[in-house]
């Protein structure tokens, strides 16, 4: 956070999408959701789960970036949000990994 020591790193200025652009983003989100749901109806084989995770990540970043204005706001907000996200991902992944290791039959 040391890069934020300057005064006025910007408040509300910068580019704001127009209503039209918001609708376009929502259409993209809708298409991505349709693609997600299609994995239930059609057999995607081994790529289904990686595909779902990638689609989820894209939707996540799009909502956070455009609807929550993270792309246009100061970086501090992104850091706060993604610090929490990364903490959660790492800590709970380790916890689940411990369960997997423990339950695996020992060699």
């Amino acid at each position, binding site marked *: 956070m040391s890069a*934020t020591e300057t*005064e*006025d*790193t*910007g*408040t*509300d200025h910068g580019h*704001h999408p*127009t*209503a039209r652009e*918001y*609708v376009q*983003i*929502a259409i993209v*989100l*809708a298409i991505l*959701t349709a693609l*997600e*749901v299609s*994995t*239930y109806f059609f057999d995607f084989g081994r790529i*289904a*789960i990686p595909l*779902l*995770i990638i*689609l*989820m990540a894209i*939707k*996540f970043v799009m*909502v*956070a970036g*455009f*609807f*929550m*204005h993270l792309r246009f706001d*100061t970086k*501090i*907000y992104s850091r*706060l*949000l*993604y*610090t*929490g*996200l990364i*903490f*959660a*991902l790492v*800590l*709970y992944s380790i*916890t*689940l990994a411990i*369960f997997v290791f423990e339950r695996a039959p020992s060699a």
Partner: protein
Amino acid sequence: MAADAHATTLGLDHRKLAMWTFLGSEFLFFGAFVATFLLYVTTTAGGPGVEIFDIPFTSISSFVLLMSSLTMVLAHNAHRQGDLRRMRLWILATAGQGAVFLGGQVFEFTVFVKEGLVLTRSPFASSFYVLTGFHGVHVFVGILLLLSLYSLSLTGKVKKDQDLKTEMIGLYWHFVDIIWVVIFTVVYLIPEIAVG
């Protein structure tokens, strides 16, 4: 806008900074529930498991919640242009979609209970209900916030130049939405493929 933003060290409004700080911590909250669900996804104690999910139904309610983010951001957009009337319209639309989502959740829970998936049935049941239930509580709080914004803008407590208030509630609303984006994939779709 932010009346005292110019006086702060980072040039940011306190309220927005606090909201982002709070949202960062929420990942740890939902993350623990999601991790618990994943741990217990097959621990059904002989009761119903993930095959009970009605994916088409949940897809529709997920879609409604996703689109409520669009109306929320349009409400903020309208407020930013000083159009309180249009802002109120979009706020009502957002709250309405939130209510539809909640109604869908109540319906889903009722069906599951009838099919034998009660909270006390298995660790799977407990973790499913408590995770999605707490998300529902967040949506409910969001609806309360939206309705308070709506009524305060009618009485003049929320003014044309105070679009920060709409933005703040929007941040919370979008956050609840992205949590559902994760839940929909990790709790419903992936287990359905991998387990069910």
